[in-house]
């Protein structure tokens, strides 16, 4: 316990100082949310590379939470879906249902090249399409995988902070 305390003291604050607010237009519905965006992450068929980056976007260094974004456990609690990967055939219906479960106003963020345009998996037999083919997408974050900064930047477009 003491050693943990010492470590906390030695490490101090690791969060990087916040970069300036990204410009580019914010989705209209995000304004209503007023700086608080709860996010439900949906893995629609990713290679888990994007998940690793999402994990670090919410880790201490990039600290996505400080901008008012928070990952939650149920789409009922969520305002936005964070979808990664191409939408596989098996995940197309669950993705639609998850979208339906979110109370309005709701937003969808497509994370990674797969989610945007099927990326390296384009044309594969098990792929139902990109995220936008299944549910309406509001923000897209390019990259394979996208860097945590990019993810945080995309989320800040929603929270506006």
């Amino acid at each position, binding site marked *: 316990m003491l050693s943990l305390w010492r470590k906390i003291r030695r490490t101090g604050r690791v969060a990087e100082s916040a970069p300036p607010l990204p410009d580019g237009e914010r989705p209209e519905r995000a304004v209503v949310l007023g700086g608080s965006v709860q996010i439900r992450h949906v893995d629609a068929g990713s290679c888990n590379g994007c998940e690793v980056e999402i994990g670090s976007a919410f880790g201490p260094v990039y600290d996505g939470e400080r901008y008012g974004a928070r990952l939650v456990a*149920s*789409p*009922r609690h969520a305002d936005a879906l964070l979808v990664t990967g191409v939408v596989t055939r098996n995940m197309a*219906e*669950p*993705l639609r*249902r*998850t979208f*339906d*479960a979110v*109370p*309005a106003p709701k937003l969808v963020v497509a994370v990674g090249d797969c989610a945007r345009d099927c990326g390296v998996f384009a044309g594969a037999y098990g792929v139902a399409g990109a995220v936008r083919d299944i549910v309406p997408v509001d923000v897209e974050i390019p990259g394979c995988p996208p860097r945590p900064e990019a993810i945080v930047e995309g989320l800040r477009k929603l929270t506006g902070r």
Partner: protein
Amino acid sequence: MNLAATGMAAAVAIAVLTALLAVVVRTRTSVVGVGTALTGVAAVVAGAAALAGGSFSVVLPGVLPLSGVSLTLDPLGGLFVAVTGGVAVAAGIYSMSYADTPDLRARGVRVALPLFVVAMVLVPAAANVGTLLVCWELMALTSLVLVVAEHRRGPQVASAGRWYAVMTHLGFVSVLIGLMLFVAHTGDDSFAAMREAGRHLSPAVAGVVFVATLVGFASKAGIVPLHAWLPRAHPEAPSHVSALMSAAMVNLGVYGLVRVGVDLLGGGAAWWWLLVLALGAVSAVYGILQAAMSSDLKRLLGQSTTENMGLVLIGVGAAGLFASSGDRALAALALTAALVHVVGHAAFKTVLFLAAGSVLHATGSRDLDALGGLRPVMPVTTAAFGVGALAASALPPGTAFVSEWLLLQALIHGLPAGGVAAAIAMPVAVAAVALTAGLAVATFVKAFGVGFLAKPRSEAVAGAHESPFTMLAAMGIAAVVCVVLALWPAGILPAVQAAAGGVAVSGDVTLRLNQATGALSPLLLTLGLVAAVAVVAAVMRAAVARRVRREARLWDCGGGPMSARMEYTATSFAEPLQRVFDDVVQPELDVDVSHHEESRYLVQAVEYRRKVPDRIERRLYQPVLSVITAWGRAGRGLAPGSVHRYLGYGFYAVCGVLLLLAVTR
């Protein structure tokens, strides 16, 4: 003849008339039901009159040989008569349509119902040992007939009847021995004479009398370890009979205990009451623990009866303990708490059993694991059960909350007053009450949440329908009484305190302890709660932007559809508790995994069975039963069916007797 006497006479007359009518002509079930309900009304009137101070006594020497019939209705008896009457009203009305089945239309069953009620009404009015024992036995026999009324349903009904018959009669024998010993020392079997002589009994004799009667009365009240009949008989009996037994009959065990221990024997030693308190604490915790594990709705209610009688005994024991250390005021408080709990328990257990009967009537099942989803199809029954469950779980605004509050007040103020015995007993009692309260909440959340809410878990439930009007009316009456008792307990306080023989709590809207600081107002609390709900609802209306609710499918992780088999059942609900109390309940688990032929690594089916046996029963009853069985087997060898052998037995027996006479003379 005053009102109490008139009421009693009317109760007896109506009941006997109904029974006669049922014997002579083919009456309809509704006639018997109305007769039973009217008997109840008369009993309530009689009891209330006695509580208001109009007690009476009559002696009818010719009716019974030896001692004659002697009846007195004093406030203590009056309370129990009134409670029994109240339960009988609801049960009678309920039976008008519930008992309209081939099994329950049988003549014997129709005769037994009013007689059972009147026997229960007469027990608290008996004023000598002979009358008490005769009424007690009449009550046992009529209830036995009612318990086995539906014996066609399966062998478990007959088995329940056997258990009930044996246990209730052993209890009867125990009471008989105790009272006979008592009478042998007083020379007169009227309660008045015994009350006089009781104070001069030697402590040893008084102790034996007390323990013997305690055993008998405790077995009637379903107190651990004499409870084994209760979780068998209550579920198998028809539901209105379960209500009568669970809400009225078990109370008479408490009545007997108070009558003999406090009234006739005049208090006695502290260890008596420590024993009562310990029995009560064990019963309360053990009963509710069994109920928490149970997935049979009526069995659960039966086990909760053991729990509630345990709580009552904690109060009675504490009252005796305080009285023996000379603290009359606290004793009155504890006894008041116990009796308020008796009344409250009678009310909510009636609702609960009647509602369970309504479920059984509609679905044919009382297995919680197969129920659920009753709210849309049986709204009234669901509401009634909800009221009963709230009352039973010691949460405000409920009846048990008020009585347990009184009980805890008595226990808290008893700690400084009572010396070292109290210093050990009181914390243990509080811990027992507290553990019971917590487990009761879990139990009734399970019973209500799993049994009535959510989605149907079986086909039978999906086709359920609401019960006929009379059944709903009976449940409604009992539920209204529950609510009134919960909100305005002061309404019954004068009556209860007249029975308890001391005024410890006063007040109208607010209950205030007289001897100690402490106040509680269930009405204000409820009003506060209602006001708070209204305020929150109003604020929400103003603050919420979108009022319309969108209907959406349940969140099933996007997969689905979720079948009813994926719901939590009563068994799975109780699983964490069962693990926590693993050492106490010692469940029997059985997991069978079968594999595919082709590969051991592929599971074909998993079968999970769990049984929570009654551990006390197994430890205590199994050995006795096996000894008796062994004895019986040995005896069978003596009866090979040869007439010569039997003549020989007779011959040797006569010779033996003659020899004995020759030697002793």
